[in-house]
């Protein structure tokens, strides 16, 4: 099914087209949600709400940019809104609270790399994790992040700095970043 046919079908509320779109993008989008959520169940709830909004607002998609990017933005907004609604995010924005989090060696997951990295991201405090997800992975600017999360831009920057530092520490302890650092250094040196 081509993208145009699929989009036309979704606009007409055709179940087969909606199923096709959902099947194509839901695995990756669930991965996005999983990075924001506390657990898989919460991630699936975010995914469900997000796709309902995707299908509801399908008429607003103007073919400007990739469909996946448009869907992803909606999913991310949905995740943020759910976090804000459940007040889980605002509880954990406090830097002082976040600074007291310590990473235990035995809690670091030991699975394949992509999932391992995501699990390490999920281990961060909610505020750090959210800012890091939005800035480093989703590509939002600190200004946009501050508007979305209702925080100051400077707070967003400082949160991200601390989040990245903490994530690096986790990845190093897990010997993932160490390997990648070596690898990247090799690539850089090769260039």
């Amino acid at each position, binding site marked *: 099914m081509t993208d145009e046919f699929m989009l036309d079908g979704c606009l007409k509320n055709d179940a087969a087209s909606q199923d096709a779109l959902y099947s194509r993008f*839901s695995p990756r989008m*669930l991965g996005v949600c999983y990075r924001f959520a506390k657990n898989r169940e919460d991630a*699936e709830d975010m995914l469900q709400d997000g796709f309902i909004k995707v299908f509801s607002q399908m008429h*607003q998609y103007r073919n400007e940019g990739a469909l996946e990017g448009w869907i992803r933005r909606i999913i991310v907004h949905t995740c943020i809104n759910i976090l804000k609604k459940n*007040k889980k995010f605002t509880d954990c924005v406090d830097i002082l609270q976040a600074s007291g989090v310590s990473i235990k060696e035995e809690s670091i997951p030991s699975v394949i790399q992509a999932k391992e990295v995501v699990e390490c991201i999920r281990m961060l405090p909610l505020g750090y994790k959210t800012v890091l997800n939005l800035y480093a*992975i989703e590509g939002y600017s600190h200004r946009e992040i501050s508007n979305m999360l*209702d925080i100051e831009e400077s707070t967003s920057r400082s949160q991200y700095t601390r989040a990245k530092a903490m994530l690096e520490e986790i990845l190093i302890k897990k010997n993932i970043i160490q390997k990648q650092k070596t690898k990247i250094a090799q690539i*850089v040196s090769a260039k």
Partner: protein
Amino acid sequence: MENHQNMESFEKFIQQQSDEFKMYPSKKVWYSIYNNFHPSRKWPSISMCIVLLSALLMIGYLNTKTNKVTIENSSIAKSDNKPLINHLENFKPINTLSYQYTEKTDQQNNTASTAKFVDKSNIIFSPKKNSTVVKEANSLLPNEKLLIVNNIKNTVATHKKSVKSITSSTNITANYEAIAVVESEALVSNTVEIKAISPTQNIELTENTNTAILQKIYTDQQINNAGPNVIAINIADESFLNEHLINAATLSQIPIATNVTDKQWIENYAFYNRQTPKKWKGKLAWQAHFTPSVIYRNLHNNTIGKNIGSNALATTLNNTSINSVVNQTPSLGLEAGIGLQFPIFNGIKVSAGIQLNYTRYNIGAFGNAHPSATSLVMNNESTGQVYELSKSTPYSNIIGLNPQTLHNQTYQLSLPIGTSIKLAGIDNVEWYAGATIQPTIVFAGSSYLISTDRRNYVKENSMLNHFNMNAGFETYISFKTVAGLTWQIGPQFRKQLFSTNSKQFSIEERIISYGLKIGVSKKL
């Protein structure tokens, strides 16, 4: 530089790893999304209730019929004797309450006479003309009695005429042992009150005399013991009597019940075939109505007293009067419904029914080519926290290239329950005032919500409140037509008690409608 490059590399690394990460959701997620856009029948219970209620009402209405007894020809044999027979075999019902005696030819006059037993156990005897009463009376055998069944509405003059026509000759009186007049209504009530006169008395028949004579009562026992032959004649119509003479010969052919069994049969037949009035008949009425109306709305900020995190947001919410910053105009709505009315006291009626409503009002806005980011102020009901929900929308409240009119509309199903009180009335024209309470279900609609900064509109149908309650007040003039219909017309005011939107949204919206109600009703 290296540090910067390492940082960028780090971000690329986690970005790449995250993009490669996939998870496969459970089937439940897709089913929930699917059901959201392809809902199954959500209201089978309501539609089934309506079907069941309608079926029950129909069954009750069809079964509350008059309990009629089918009268078959009596098995009593006709006597061959001249004497008056007390059988009914020659009578057959015309309808449920009537008999018609088959015509028999009068051999002397070659004319036919008929006897009819109609309505309320009356027996109408229609003798031929020109027959003298004397001659006819002589045909009566001794011990024959004349039982005159009289319509209760007849006057004494009618009694007099009938009695006189029978007893104008002394010979007639000699042949009669008794002449009894039975009020036809008495037959209906399962008791027989017999007012008898004695023809053997030399009575000058005057109007007053008749009355006195008629007061003399024969008991059932006396009538029964007096013999089996009693004739029942109806004197229901004075003008009818003027045209006819009582034909005694024909009288002898009238089979009537004289013994206890037959009389009881007649009485029971009349009693059980009396039309039983339905208790609610003449009271219960159906009504159909429709009300075109003008819809207004009022917006109100419901974040007062809640915990607003941002000072800027608080300032926006508390200082801005929403109704002054939105461009809204009323629009037309419609209500249409059917129901039942039942009077409980004199001048007070209760009613219940079902009604479809359509509400709409207009919002002046602008459409933009590209959507812009905005937010909605939401309430967290559990925590009392106010927060903003990010949205994007192409509709602006302030400025834009394409002026547009947005329609906030709802489709509703309500169950109005109300009462009406009669204020005044002359003849067929009456003046009523009424009130209704209407539990309402909103089953469809569209909703455009004003954004936090009041600069945009966001379409969000999920915020529609699916249950609501309306209160209505009305006054109307009703006038009855000859056809039995009653028309009502008058103004109606209807107010929505709960907000159109869910409590999650920070702005409450109330609908008010002013309309003209036109209705028609008819008693069942």
